């Protein structure tokens, strides 16, 4: 497009209007989250004749933690225009390793947590190398590594079992108060710092136009490897939270996080076409996904129909988000 025509289509609205249009995905995700919270409180109040209190808040936050981490991990890769189907496998592997290794003391649990996080990052490194150096599509690479990670998880923990020290559970998902919110805040702050770093900026650049960003000097290979490693690390953290919640391990419970993390990322306003959205949105998406399950539970919806309502909700949210987002962008 020649410069003179592009200057005509430059946004002429207010600065606020510009900010809204730029962050429309995040704003929509925040609105859906607000509606989900209100819906939950309303249904809970109608059914239980009181407002949800500390216990409900704590259990909701705790049950959302694994998905929050898995979704933020997924968002890094989706921002590069990729997709990670191996998230479930890494969650499985971390979960299985935690159950086998942690022993009885908090000290050994923390030490092994660090090891497990490194293993998760190594899984991500493998994905990143295959995508970056192997020139294979992310979806097929992670389809293959999913199978490998799932196999390793079953090797580590053939039968459900093992044990997680109670002190570790109290640290990660304390059942008495929603202390786990601290981890969400830390995750958000970590994202804010990363977003402003060189790899963070590059992440958006290659998600928007890989060829152009390469020409402009972005190290595409390094950025992708960083994205996949962070993704693997956070998926492993999800596995740790899952193990802490269940107080034991199971090498297959993590499988579902592959698809739910994609749902959370989409609900959080991260574009599957890359370069748009943020990890904050993914956190919101993960909380929405968890709240929907709670709403259906307290609304006495037949649990057999649960996945039907989740599917319908996902479609409505995505279509409504697309319509509203499109309308706002067109008006400017």
């Amino acid at each position, binding site marked *: 497009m020649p410069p003179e025509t592009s200057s005509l289509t430059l946004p002429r609205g207010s600065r606020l209007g510009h900010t809204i249009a730029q962050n429309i995905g995040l704003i929509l995700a925040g609105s859906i989250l607000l509606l989900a919270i209100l819906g939950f409180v309303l249904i809970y109040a109608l059914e239980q004749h009181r407002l949800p209190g500390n216990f409900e808040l704590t259990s909701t936050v705790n049950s959302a933690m694994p998905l929050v981490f898995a979704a933020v991990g997924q968002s890094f890769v989706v921002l590069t225009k990729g*997709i990670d*189907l191996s998230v479930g496998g890494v969650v499985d592997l971390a979960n299985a390793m935690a159950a086998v290794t942690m022993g009885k003391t908090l000290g050994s649990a923390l030490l092994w947590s660090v090891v497990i996080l490194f293993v998760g990052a190594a899984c991500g490194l493998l994905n990143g190398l*295959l995508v970056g150096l*192997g*020139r*294979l*599509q992310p*979806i*097929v*690479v992670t*389809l*293959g*590594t*999913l*199978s*490998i*990670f*799932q*196999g*390793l998880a*079953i*090797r580590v923990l*053939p039968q459900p079992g093992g044990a997680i020290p109670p002190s570790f559970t109290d640290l990660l998902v304390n059942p008495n108060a929603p202390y786990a919110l601290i981890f969400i805040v830390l995750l958000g702050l970590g994202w804010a710092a990363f977003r402003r770093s060189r790899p963070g900026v590059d992440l958006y650049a290659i998600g928007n136009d890989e*060829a152009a960003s390469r020409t402009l000097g972005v190290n595409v290979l390094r950025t992708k490897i960083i994205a996949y490693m962070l993704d693997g690390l956070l998926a492993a953290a999800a596995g740790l939270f899952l193990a802490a919640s269940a107080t034991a391990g199971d090498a297959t419970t993590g499988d579902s996080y592959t*698809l739910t993390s*994609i*749902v959370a990322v*989409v609900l959080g306003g991260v574009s*599957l*076409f890359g370069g748009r959205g943020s990890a904050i949105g993914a956190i919101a998406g993960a909380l929405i996904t968890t709240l929907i399950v709670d709403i259906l539970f307290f609304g006495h919806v*037949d649990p*057999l*129909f*649960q*996945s*039907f*309502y*989740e*599917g*319908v909700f*996902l*479609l409505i949210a*995505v*279509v409504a988000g*697309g319509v509203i987002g499109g309308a706002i962008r067109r008006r400017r």
Partner: protein
Amino acid sequence: MKAAMKYLPRLAPESWRVVYAIVAAIVLFLIGEAVHPGFLGLANVETILVIASFVGLVAAGQCFVILIGGIDLSVPWVLNAGAIVLATTSMGLDARAPLAVAATLGLGIAVGAVNGAGVAWFGIPAVVMTLAMNGIIEGLVLGFTGGFTCAACSAYAPPVVQSLAHGALLGVPDALWLWVVVIVLVSAVLSITRFGRATYALGNNPRAAVLAGVDARGLTIMLYAASGFFAALAGIMLVGFGGQASLGMGDPYLFTSIAAVVIGGVNILGGRGHYLGVAAGAVSLTVLVSVLLALNMPDYVRSIAYGVVILALLLAYGRETET
């Protein structure tokens, strides 16, 4: 090396990938014979090919949508719903079989068409649309069958459907005849019909295809409907093969069908590939599992080897050209 290359036929890179996929399947068969003598026995090969045909049917639909850069994640529950609808509506009676088969295939086509409409009209990403549809069908199946506890849920497939999956004609299993027909039809549709050329065109460059007069929306809906049709068809064959429907019987077919398509040399971004390669990919994956089973490998080794072989095949011939 160069001199030898001269005698090889000149084929497009996509056609070479079909050759590679077929060679990979043959090599895997030979490895099977090497590590487990008797693996190449006629009965064993027939069994492997019949099981591969179920993957191949699902992968035919998956191939259609991947050729336009889409994907169908609703395959598992469309297949499962198809199997359940067939068993429950036929009640195991041959007289009701034609109607039950029609209802099952109609369901697959309808669900696929809704997927296509969501992608084409509402611009929903294919991953999201078909993932949500998978959940919707799962919820409906579980809900309406009361968690698969309904009286009709334990019905057997009609004998005529069972014999379709187990019978043989001229010494070749019926399931393989069906697959051969599907291979010929799908390959013909893709390579010599207007519909097929439009599919490749849409996958290569949607904008150019639309400007050249391709009805992108209509075509997208038809391709997703085809995917639903093939998933339902696989459901019919599987319920005939196993006798009864069960919950979760479609789950293994999601990732396997995608893997068969990409190992078969189809570009996951669309526009390039042939169904013949996909069929070879389905055979490769089934042979691989059979070899590992024949060697009595534990589950985890099978899972790891499966992943490693998929990645190795892709690295060998599935890489994108240098940019």
